[in-house]
């Protein structure tokens, strides 16, 4: 039921995990199929590839997977699925499309229809024009942002405290119009800084200074090297499509999921997964998005390892990636040997990261140390006696404290200016994700 997008889907799936509504069910290897009779006259056609974690249903539900898929899975898991049905057309088509998807490695859909050359050229020209217009809009918007920043420090940031919510809203809306959404989001986070208590003005100036740096970097983008220019574009709000990313040469490794965080902003839910490569030792973060309470369709599960290709976004250093081909799933590894370094080393890694990307908010590290709770604050003390505050949600921190129980263990987390946000720890070769 871990794949269920939400609790109501789980409950709905359980209700359908009875033989009554189903007909023509069957299995072949990892493939399951069946027809589920609902209130309408036409039953829904449901197919599931258990091994590949793919599913399809003909119902109009916007949830993924839907309750019919969940019901079929539960019936199969409970060994109550009548497996006598013959392979149906829809199940066979589903199986074929899965095989085609696995064979395709050029990022294009397996059943893509070749395009007319003239139409392709017109499409490309249109895209170039749109891109050029966007560049202009962003430049205008960033210039306006710079003027606004200078006006604020010139007239005084004290004005922000009079109405924090509205103070930056107009310029944030302007950034949306200028197609610089990441800048708009950064501006909309400023009211929290204004309301943050003592020292708010210093913290606010820090954030405004970062935006000033970004505006200046955008203005001089032509002078920057390619990687840094790509970072600036991303920080402004340019995105790289998955199709483009999948054309970037992948990094193949056995990737262990060492962290998971769900956030929500403006009704968009984001799941961030942190991965570490067994051979390369590289870090990666993979993002999934959903709207309106739909779940996240991802084969990556906490603490488990996949042999897969990751396609990294341009970055300095590259961290964000898109999941490409999954070659195999290995379940929970029992032989992770990351000894964990000291906090001094982690701080050095953070400084290096910040030197290459001044807008970075954190970098994954592994630090060996002991967790404690003192005066209401969680701390990690490394084996050298150096310590850092642990940040994050209370349940995860208590769980970390309770499970590590005063032992010195490698703790995986994201280090940043305010401390370390733990996501997992290692125990006897196993990754325990909080």
């Amino acid at each position, binding site marked *: 039921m871990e794949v269920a997008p939400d609790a109501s889907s789980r*409950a709905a799936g*359980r*209700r359908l995990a*009875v033989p*009554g509504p189903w007909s023509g069910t069957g299995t072949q290897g990892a493939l399951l199929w069946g027809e589920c009779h609902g209130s309408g006259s036409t039953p829904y056609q449901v197919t599931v590839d258990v091994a590949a974690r793919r599913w399809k249903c003909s119902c109009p539900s916007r949830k993924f997977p839907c309750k019919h898929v969940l019901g079929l899975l539960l019936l199969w898991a409970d060994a109550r699925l009548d497996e006598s049905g013959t392979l149906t057309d829809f199940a066979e088509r589903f199986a074929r499309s899965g095989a085609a998807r696995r064979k395709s490695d050029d990022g294009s859909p397996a059943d893509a229809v070749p395009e007319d050359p003239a139409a392709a050229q017109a499409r490309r020209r249109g895209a170039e024009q749109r891109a050029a217009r966007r560049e202009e809009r962003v430049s205008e918007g*960033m*210039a306006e942002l*710079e*003027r606004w*920043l*200078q*006006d604020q*420090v*010139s*007239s*005084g*940031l*004290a004005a922000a405290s009079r109405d924090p919510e509205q103070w930056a809203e107009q310029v944030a809306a302007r950034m949306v119009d200028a197609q610089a959404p990441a800048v708009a989001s950064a501006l909309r986070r400023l009211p929290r800084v204004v309301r943050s208590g003592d020292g708010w003005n*210093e913290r606010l*100036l*820090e954030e*405004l*200074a*970062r935006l*000033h*740096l970004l505006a*200046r970097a955008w*203005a*001089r983008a032509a002078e920057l090297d390619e990687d840094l220019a790509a970072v600036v574009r991303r920080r402004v709000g340019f995105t790289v499509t998955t199709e483009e990313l999948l054309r970037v040469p992948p990094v193949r490794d056995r990737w262990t999921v060492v962290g998971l965080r769900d956030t929500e902003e403006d009704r968009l839910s984001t799941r961030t997964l942190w991965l570490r490569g067994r051979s390369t030792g590289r870090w990666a973060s993979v993002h999934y998005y959903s709207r309106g309470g739909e779940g996240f369709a991802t084969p990556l599960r906490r603490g488990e390892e996949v042999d897969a290709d990751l396609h990294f976004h341009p970055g300095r250093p590259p961290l964000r990636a898109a999941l490409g081909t999954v070659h195999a799933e290995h379940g929970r590894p029992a032989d992770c040997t990351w000894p964990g370094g000291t*906090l001094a080393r*982690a*701080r050095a890694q*953070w400084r290096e990261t*910040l*030197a290459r990307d*001044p807008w970075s908010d954190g970098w994954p590290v592994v630090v060996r140390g*002991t967790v*404690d*709770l*003192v005066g*209401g604050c969680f*701390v990690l*003390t490394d084996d050298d006696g*150096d*310590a*850092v*505050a642990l940040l994050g949600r209370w*349940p995860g921190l*208590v*769980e970390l*404290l*309770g*499970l590590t*129980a*005063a*032992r010195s263990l490698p703790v995986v987390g994201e280090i*940043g*200016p*305010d*401390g370390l946000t733990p996501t997992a720890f290692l125990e006897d070769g196993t990754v325990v994700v909080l």
Partner: protein
Amino acid sequence: MTGFPDLAVAATLGCASRRVDLAGLPGEISVPGEDARAGGAGAGGPAPRLLDAAAQYATARRARVRPAAPSRPEAPPPETRPAVPPRLAGVVQRLAGDPELLSEAVRLVAARGLRLSPSTLVRCLEGADEDRWAVLEPVAGQAGAWLFAKGAFPGQRPRLSAQERWARATEPEARTAALRALRAADPALGRELLEQELAVVRPRERAALLPALEVGLGPEDLPLLTGQWEGRAAGPRAAARDLLARLPGSAVARQHEAWAAEWITVQRRLARSPRLVLGGEGPPDAERWGIPRDSAPARVLQVVSRVPPDSWPRILGLDVLELAALLEAAGTDPWPHLRTAALTFRHRRLASVIVHRPRQVRRAGDRSAVRPLDQDLLRLLERPEQERLVAQALRSPEDRWPWDAVAALAAPLPAAVWRAWLERLVREAPTGGGPTAAHWRMLLHRVGPADLTAVGAALRELTARGDGAAWRTPLHRAVETLTLRSALHEELS
């Protein structure tokens, strides 16, 4: 030297009016001169240079990673019990929102010599009220207790003794409940603490607390109650009087019996059934006694409610039921007062007779309705009789609201009762009637371990029938709850 705080002050007040010494920046922070600024946008002046300096400072500040005071804790003692397997831990988490079911789960876990892991404890305590730790503490293990001692569960509090709860309670309901619990644990201590309290609180609070003495009421309570009865405040006097009436040998009890003998005369007639003559004068201080002054039948009935039912043969040579019949024949309705007597003196036989009396209500246009079963009287009966009456009420269409009756039955419910409950549900729910969420909880908490599978199967069958949309949600929740309880009992019983 101009540091970041100086820049922040200037920016807060406005660098147009508050000068900032940009020449005083440290050497590592480089800011172009006003006339040499390149690549910037907007107006000149100190603002862009201040922002340049602030950006460099900000990056340097952010690179530092705020340090913390090092601290390494003492390790918790080694665990003495294994942890509940993950699948069952998940079941316990899902039951954590229901206090009764969580308590059942904790009992089962503890009985098997298991504990909950810190991860499970954290999830069970997240968003919980402050008393949940007390429920979970027996199965928290060494790590859980260690976490609690470190303050890892803010807002939770340990299990308090009855005396501690009494000492901390401030709201009237909480104080009464704490006192009743104290009396149940140690009647003498409860009386002693109450006596101290009565000396300092107002009459209204004394009147609210005194009834708690009914728990473990005994001759040792006579002096305290007599003191309150002889006091001047009406509320405490009435509360004390009601309790004294229950103590055989007390002056109050003896007085009521004396009045019964004086005000009720049994006229035995040849070849005819006896009859009662109700008369006599009420006491001059009738108000103090809570006795109606003017009406002889009303006076008599008030006395009837305060005399132990088993005393009537001695007082009048009549069994209590014979007395009831004669009082009815005399034109009175003794049953409400006999009900009080049955409850006060926990008289099973009288309770049984009253419960079996016709319950029809006279309602315009509805001659078929009956009053619900009296749960308080039901609780006094023998178990088999309770079960029979509840099952009968569930099966009787005239009994319009039988669901509450289940509350009188302690767990486990016999099959006859839960089958009748489900049959009634099937009949009634599709038309919009049926149990409330509270009644569902009552049922689900009272199904015994041996019947969980059968009840779950019956409910799943109802689910598959697909009718009665209004009750589908509680039905599915019920199936889920029973499945969870089933899983626990299968693995841990």
